[in-house]
Structure formats: C-alpha cells, structure tokens
C-alpha cells in the first residue's frame, strides 16, 4: 500500500484547520539571520524547511521557560491563594526532529515519577508531535552515537519523510497520530504509489560507549580525581548548554510581583549556575565550576538512564553548538569511553 502524503502546498490548509479548531501550530521559523526557532505560527508560509535543529527544542510547548502556577492576593481581608487551572488547547508541533521527539520521553519520566506535575502532563497530552526525518545535519549532530536514528519514530505521533518533490510521506506512529490524520483527512491524501523519499542524513559516528560511560559514573571514586577539573576548566558557567538541552528539566520556583498581588512561577534554571545549590548557611556543595559541569554529565549519563530509565542525551548537538568556549561534551564522552 502506498504511504499517505502530506503535500507541502497543503500545509496552508492544515495550519488554518488546526487554528479553526482552536489549536495552536508550532513550527520552525527563521526568526533572525541564520537563527531558526520553534515559534507559534499563524500561516504556513512562515515555516522554515531548511534547518538542522532549531536553536531551542520544542520543549517550551510542554515545559515553558516561565509559567504561572499560582496567584496570591494579600489585602486587609486576608490572603487568598489560587492555583492556576491549566486547560491547554491542542498544540501541533510541526517539524520536530527525532532527537527532540525522543526527549519528550525523558522530560515525561522526570515529571511523572511518583508525583505527577500536571503542568507538564496536561500540556504534553494536548500536543501532537509531527516529526520530519533529518535529511540534513552538521558536525555537531551525533544522535546515532547515543542510540537514536535520524528517522526514528519514538516520541513522535507522526513521522514525515521528505520526498524528492518537496512533499512528505506520512507514517502514523501513535493512536493520537492516527486520530489526527482522520480529523485532518483533507490534507493527508493517498496516491497510487509512494514518491521517492530523500536520503536520510548520516551523522558522524563518535567513538563512544554509553555502557562504559555509565559504568564509569557508577563508581563513586570516579567523582574525585583530576579528570573533571581538567576537562571542564574552560567552562564559564553560562548555562547555555542546559537551556538549549531538550532533556534539561530543572527549574526554580519564585514569587514575582508586588506584595499585594503575586504570581508563583516555575522558571527554567540551570545546574551550571553557582547559586543553584547554594545553601542558606553559605555552604555550597558544588562550589567550583567543574563540579557543576560534572553534575551535568552525571545527570545525562547516569541519573537519566539509571533513575529515570530514559535518555539524558539525545545527540541533538545543541550544547556543542552553543557553548561559547567550545567545551564539547562529545570529547568528554570519548575520553571516558577510552578510560
């Protein structure tokens, strides 16, 4: 049977139809010279098709950089507390990459182990992830080295592959994806034959062994030693790598506003900042930058796979691209794999 097709020219219809049903449409857009980001779009002609991965992942759709969780009012009658009731509209993510799609599993694993953070789950439930398999990439991409393929379906509701003609073949991955095709059947058409698909990108393969890295990190003695200080000497603690990372889940909780009316917010935070773990007493368990960098590595290759049973690193390469001092995590991965 021939695969279903989504014509590029039908995206106009799709964007309009999703909007008409009250949903939002997120897609890559060239927001500045050379910078592509996932943003809410209103019209299909805003969509950028020539991108590797957008600057930030689409995690902002299910884990916004800042979000109100409660509101307080302080007046002479007393204090009132009101929790935010989330009722997110459908959000269609178009043009996700398999690495980012996979990262939803990671975020989900943190936000649902034992306690369930409904600010995350409600948004995720309302999301339809339409991934476009990668036909382009760069030297920072390394998904195949962490067990993901540039046309993997994990975490996607639909997987699209570009055809030579610029349209997309459609693979329904989840029930949610199937239902979406049914709802939007006007744009998911069926031809007689499947058109020729473009070749999938082949990222560079690192000389890494995730199991070996995992074993290395399991040994608490390996937390000591000069390796970390040596490897992370350059790090200036800017936090860019963690903000760009699709699996980073850390946040701060702050009350913002005046004393009479305040919002309690969840705001992205980063383990690369010195204040992150600073105790009220003045003691800081991670008082040096290399200790903070070590924590990030530990988080990605021990805590995520060990505790949460998901991937801490999806190989999107963002941290490698954004680091102002070119501290390349893949070099540390290779070093430890060879240790």
């Amino acid at each position: 049977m021939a695969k279903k097709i989504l014509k590029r020219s039908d995206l106009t219809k799709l964007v309009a139809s999703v909007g008409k049903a009250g949903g939002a449409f997120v897609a890559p857009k060239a927001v500045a010279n050379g910078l592509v980001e996932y943003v809410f779009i209103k019209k299909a002609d805003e969509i950028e098709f020539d991108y590797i991965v957008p600057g930030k992942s689409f995690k902002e759709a299910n884990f916004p950089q800042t979000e109100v969780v409660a509101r307080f009012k302080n007046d002479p009658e007393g204090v009132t507390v009101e929790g935010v009731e989330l009722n997110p509209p459908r959000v269609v993510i178009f043009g996700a990459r398999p690495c980012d799609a996979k990262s939803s599993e990671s975020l989900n694993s943190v936000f649902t182990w034992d306690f369930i953070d409904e600010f995350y789950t409600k948004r995720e439930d309302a999301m339809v992830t339409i991934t476009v398999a990668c036909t382009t990439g760069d030297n920072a991409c390394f998904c195949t080295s962490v067990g993901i393929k540039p046309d993997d379906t994990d975490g996607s509701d639909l997987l699209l592959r570009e055809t030579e003609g610029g349209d997309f073949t459609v693979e329904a991955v989840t029930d949610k994806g199937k239902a979406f095709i049914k709802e939007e059947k006007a744009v998911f058409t069926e031809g007689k034959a499947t058109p020729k698909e473009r070749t999938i990108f082949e990222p560079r393969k690192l000389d890494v062994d995730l199991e070996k890295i995992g074993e290395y990190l399991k040994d608490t003695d390996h937390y000591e030693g000069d390796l970390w200080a040596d490897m992370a000497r350059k790090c200036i603690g800017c936090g860019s790598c963690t903000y760009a990372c699709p699996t980073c889940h850390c946040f701060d909780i702050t009350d913002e506003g005046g004393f009479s009316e305040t919002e309690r917010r969840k705001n992205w935070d980063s383990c690369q900042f010195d204040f992150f773990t600073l105790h009220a007493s003045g003691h800081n368990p991670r008082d040096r930058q290399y200790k903070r960098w070590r924590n990030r590595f530990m988080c990605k290759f021990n805590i995520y796979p060990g505790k949460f049973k998901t991937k801490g690193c999806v190989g999107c390469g963002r941290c490698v691209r954004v680091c102002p001092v070119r501290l390349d995590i893949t070099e540390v991965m290779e070093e430890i794999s060879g240790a």
Partner: protein
Amino acid sequence: MKNLYLPELVTIEDITNEAPDVVTFRLVFKDEALKESFEFKTGQFGLYSALGLGESTFCIASPDTRKGYIECTFRKSGRVTGALAAMSVGDTMGFRGPYGNAFPIEDWKGKNLVFIAGGIGLPPVRSVIWSCLDKREDFGDITIVYGSRAVADLVYKEELAHWEERDDINLVQTVDPGGETPEWKGKVGFVPTIVKETAPKADNTIAVICGPPIMIKFTLSALEELGFSDEAVYTTLENKMKCGVGKCGRCNVGDIYVCKEGPVYTAAEVKLMYNDF
C-alpha cells in the same frame, strides 16, 4: 487539576524566640478538614512560604504523635526567612508537604536511643525525640547530647530544662570552648568529644545525629570508636530544595534525590554516596 506547587494556608498560632535570629512557629491549617486529617512521619520536611516572597525548606520540628498543628524552627538568613521571621501570631503563611522519607522509629522498639545534635541541627532531632518520648515505654535508655557554639545559641531552652529534670532521659549539654557563661552548668567541649566522654553503649542502640557537616563527620568517627555500626546511625541530609517533589533537579547528591529518597539516611548509606555534599 492537582497542583503540586500550590501551598496550603496556615495560621501562625504561636511564636517562640529560641536564640538570636532563631524562631519556632506553631502552625495550624486554615482548612478545618485538613487540620483534622493532616498526618506526617517524623523526619519529613515541608516548604514554607512567605506568600509573595517565596518558599524555604525546613523539617517539621514537632513530633508526629501530636495532631492538629505542626512546628518549624528556622534561622533568619535570607529574603524568605527574613520575611517569615517578621511575621506575628495570627498571620497567614503557606505550607507544602509533608515530603521525603522518615526515621523508621517503629523498627527501633526495644532499643536504646542516642540523639546527638549541634546548634540548629536540633529541630529535626527534636521531632524524633518527642515522637519517641510520647511512646517512652517502647524504648530502652534515652541519651541526648546537644551542643552549640555558645549558651545563647542553644535552642528549645525550656524543653532542655524539662528533659534535664526527667529521670528517664540522660541529657548532656555542652558548648564549644569559649562559649560558656559564668552560670553555665553543662559541659564545655565540642560535641564529638563529649559523645566520646559520655560513651553510650553501642549494644542494641540506635544513634540519630544532626548538625553542621564538620560535627557530623567527627561524631561519626566517635561513634565508630564506641562500636556503633553504620547501619545503626541515622542522620538527615540538608540540601537546597525548590520543589520538594523530585522535579526541579537541585537537591541531588550524585544520583540521589534528597527530597524524594531522603532526607533520612543511615551512615552506611551516606558513606556510599558521591562526594557531592
């Protein structure tokens, strides 16, 4: 929608000034039903908010055997604790919890107990002490070693006087050399030294310690010398926390999330942790 970050409102029913900049609040839930149903286990903690300014993490310092209220003891040190300390009886604040694991005191039936605390490390231990004292017949000998830098810094002074009077508790109080006053009747010396001097017997005994990291370190070796096994020594870890529910990612010691898997650990467990304190 279930909102993990929404605090419950509590009223400050009583305030005790314990030491310079250290206060104890007695808190009662505004919601009558919650006031009745609220339960926790000794060792658990909560997030207390000065609504509009933010949250701070403290242990629940009252025993789990007393219903209808909770207490917390904290030192005024930052924006939130400063705002809390400025509040008065009758004021409203926020509470989220209880979170974390607890001291397994049910498993300690029939055993002798040694409580060791330094300075502001007494509040979590005090919760355990009273939880055990309220079931006094379940336990053997009870020894408490408590020390602080100076006499003025000792917290729960009234309770210390009460424990001193009871003949079913052996209370040993100490202050660091130089911290004594002319009236001071207790010991002078650092907590680990006084623990060694007091020499509680290790046989069939559980020890609970809490205090500054340096005190814990040396007390652990003192207990080891006295023959305590690492499995019989409990402590509660402190770390910076924001969510309390395993999401915000900042309380981990290596691969351990203190807010979820702790804060109570045996010395044996602590020794297996990454050097990330």
